[in-house]
């Protein structure tokens, strides 16, 4: 059995980033995890936008927010990663995506307000180039046509226009998506947009509705692997700036990310086991032995070090029963509310969030999860991403950034120990 330098447990943002960084640093990498989780991404890469959560304070400068965060919440995982390391990690990560056909953009050192499918705006740091036109249109309140489709659930141009009463130049239209009827699903539409004839048909359906619009926004369905080529073609056909708005999860943004990693990681030499959750781990001083998957397709993996990037509840890194939360692979101690009744506050939308959403693994400064004795569980086991305690990435708007930054830190620390 081959012994790898690093086993990456998990295939969300943190797992993908850890595999990428480790492979780029010359380590031999094996990765296993479920494929479904990242499908729910909006495609936005948040760094940090809201702090403190209870005050709902939105920051335009994420690095200024980081300074405040580290001061107020010294246990937050960001406290273990320096600003320059975060910036470098994000650059390396988006560079990789760019090489694999996914263009990202943003303003250095500044958060951007991006349009969502509900008509609200969300502060984020980096966003797909295909959505950037929406940012410009929104900021300029430019004359814009928002198009949605009969049969596509989860995005309503009219609702967006109603919510954005501050944008009088926004008009809406609903058209029939060419070649499909009944209920539509974004992935099928995106694949069908690979056909240039389909784009021409769509453009012809939209052209009579353009009027004075300078921008045209669509639900995110512009291709799986060549989004910017589709966007440019649509711009050419319509003679207007064109942008995408991510639909409700699972939107096409997630599968695009997954596809980019499916293409790019094996090319860097990473051995990927997709849709195989790690079901068992044996740990000795020298070595980790993992079982990934179950039944006849289970595989045994040996590695000298590991990055635990298995996520929280949806990623199945943490398992909750009616009484307690447990860590799924090593049964590491999980920092969690003492009593079950403390998990949630009475109000679902309580601005302070819920205690359970801060639960996860405690680590040392090198992001090594602590064992029951309060010391690192293993000298070469590190953790990254949502499984880390003391953060509420959803409310803080720091999910992808935290995943990428802590993955980078974990890999750097681990590589020094191998």
């Amino acid at each position, binding site marked *: 059995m081959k012994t790898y330098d690093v086993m990456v447990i998990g295939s969300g943002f943190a797992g993908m980033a850890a595999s990428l960084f480790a492979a780029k640093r010359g380590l031999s990498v094996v990765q296993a995890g479920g494929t479904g989780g990242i499908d729910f991404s909006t495609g936005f890469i948040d760094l940090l936008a809201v702090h403190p959560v209870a005050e709902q304070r939105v920051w335009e400068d994420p690095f200024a927010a980081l300074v405040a965060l580290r001061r107020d919440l010294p246990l937050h995982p960001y406290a273990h990663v320096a600003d320059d390391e975060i910036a470098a990690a994000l650059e390396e990560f988006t560079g990789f995506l760019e090489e694999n056909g996914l263009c990202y953009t943003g303003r250095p050192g500044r958060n951007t307000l991006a349009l969502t499918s509900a008509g609200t705006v969300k502060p984020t740091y980096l966003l797909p180039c295909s959505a950037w036109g929406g940012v410009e249109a929104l900021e300029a309140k430019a004359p814009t046509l928002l198009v949605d489709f009969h049969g596509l659930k989860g995005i309503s141009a009219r609702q967006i226009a109603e919510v954005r009463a501050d944008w009088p130049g926004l008009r809406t239209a609903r058209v029939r998506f060419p070649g499909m009827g009944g*209920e539509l699903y974004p*992935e099928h539409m995106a694949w069908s947009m690979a056909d240039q004839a389909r784009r021409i048909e769509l453009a012809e359906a939209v052209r009579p509705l353009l009027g004075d619009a300078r921008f045209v926004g669509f639900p995110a369905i512009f291709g799986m692997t060549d989004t910017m080529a589709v966007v440019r073609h649509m711009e050419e056909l319509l003679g207007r700036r064109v942008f995408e708005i991510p639909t409700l999860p699972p939107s096409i943004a997630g599968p695009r990310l997954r596809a980019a990693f499916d293409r790019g990681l094996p090319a860097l030499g990473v051995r990927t086991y997709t849709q195989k959750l790690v079901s068992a781990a044996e740990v000795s001083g020298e070595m980790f032995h993992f079982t990934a998957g179950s039944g006849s397709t289970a595989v045994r993996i040996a590695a000298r070090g590991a990055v635990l990037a298995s996520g929280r509840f949806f990623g199945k890194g943490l398992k909750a029963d009616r009484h307690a939360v447990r860590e799924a692979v090593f049964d590491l101690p999980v920092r969690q509310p003492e009593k079950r009744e403390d998990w949630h506050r009475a109000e679902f939308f309580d601005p302070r969030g819920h205690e359970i959403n801060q639960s996860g693994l405690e680590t040392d400064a090198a992001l090594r999860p602590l064992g029951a004795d309060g010391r690192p569980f293993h000298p070469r086991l590190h953790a990254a991403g949502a499984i880390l305690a003391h953060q509420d990435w959803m409310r803080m708007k720091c999910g992808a950034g935290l995943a990428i930054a802590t993955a980078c830190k974990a890999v750097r620390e681990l590589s020094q120990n191998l």
Partner: protein
Amino acid sequence: MDFFSAGLGLACLSFVLGFAWRVHGRPGSRLPAASEQDRRKSGLAAGLVDIILLRRTLRTGKLRWAGHTLLILGFLPLLFLHAMDGIVTRPLFSGYEPTLEPWQSARNALGLAALAGLGLLVWHRGRRLRAFSRVQDWALLGLLAAVLLTGFVLEAAKMASPADFERMVADFFPEADGDEFIALQAHWARENGVRFERFLPTAPEILEQGRELHEDRCAGCHAPTATAFASRTLADALPAGAVLPRTMAPIFWHLHVGLAFLVLALLPWGKFLHPLASPANLLVRGGRWDSGFPAAPPARNLALEACTRCGQCSLHCSVAPSRRVLGNVDILPMDKLADLRSWLDRSLDGARLADLVEGSHVCTECLRCTQVCPAGIDLQDLWISSKAALSEAGRAGVDGEIRKRTAGEWAHELASRRLGKVGASGSGLADHAESFWGCVQCTTCTGVCPVVAVSTDPQRDLDLTPQQIMNYLRMGLKAQTLGARMVWSCTTCYKCQEHCPQGVPVADILYELRQLGARTLRHRGKP
């Protein structure tokens, strides 16, 4: 009319009539024409190479190839040079006598080669194909072996037989006096293994006289019988002092010739035709391994006849496990072909027809049988066209029955029944809440589904999408899902299951529902 003429006449009549019946009104024209026919010319040379080198047979195993090669290399020369010597060998080779060299030793060598080939084929069939074999498979091997063995026994009996010796002397040396006759007897008994009743002298001068008489009178037509090495060994194996009854050689002659006539008479029937039909089909196929050429009725007729029942297709069939579960032999290509032929001849109905329909629809058209067939039969074309012909005849199978009504109508009928569970454990995934606990109705399964992707309107074409079926099931509405065309259109590509973020076994559940539906309709369709 003597035995030979009468037997040959009858055998030829049977062959001609049988062949005419088999070719007459052949039903290839009852199969719908392929929509896109490949008009590429077949490669005659490639077809010939397939026939001569048995290239496709080699691909299915060295043992089968060796068996066939030995059998053909042994049997064909025996057929032309020995059985038909009067019209082939004698005109071609002046001075031909079957008892001269090299014919005598060649006959033995060829016979042994053919027997060895048969032995390999019997061994192979017994080891690998026993489960698929029927009476005619063994009968063909047995009859050929009987023809060859009686040939050896006949030759041995003639060698040992004093009656034949006396007949020959009476015919070709009638003036022999008593001493000369004894001297010749002594020589033949010593050198050529004839067994006489009486004790013969061994004095050297008498043997020398016998040798001279032999040289003078017999050697022109008789090589030493030792050159017929196999038969002579057989003759010598008789116990010392044993003398064959005078009727023995004629009995073996009648047996040997009679069996040969029987083979000729049976040639048009069943798999006995394959030595003719398979090479003809290989020639038509012209070395092609894929499907689609030429799908015209005559080619299909030939394809229907060319099966050797070698069983290779059944060994390689992708859905063979279904046969083990359902017990329907028509799931395997070889047996399905036979029943398809019967159906096209309008002589198949009842349970056998139901089996054929089911077998046709279990087939996934994976092309493996077509690629492995040593006779080069375009089975793929037959399956695709016969499935269409069966549907045309109102025999669309469970799959077709389901599509005659909507999911709602099926639910109405099925709701009143106790819907069984699938699986040896008696518990199905669809019946367990645990299967759906994780489902968050996120639509990922539907979003990646290629069947949903190619439908222009999922609700109209498929009734329910995968995530909707999961939702119905977790609400306990199993009857409502069984007739959903999504269940019946699922290609079990497993994308849904592979992408489910919550580990719901979506494809397994769809497959289970289809099995359950198929079983329900199977029992409904049968008395």
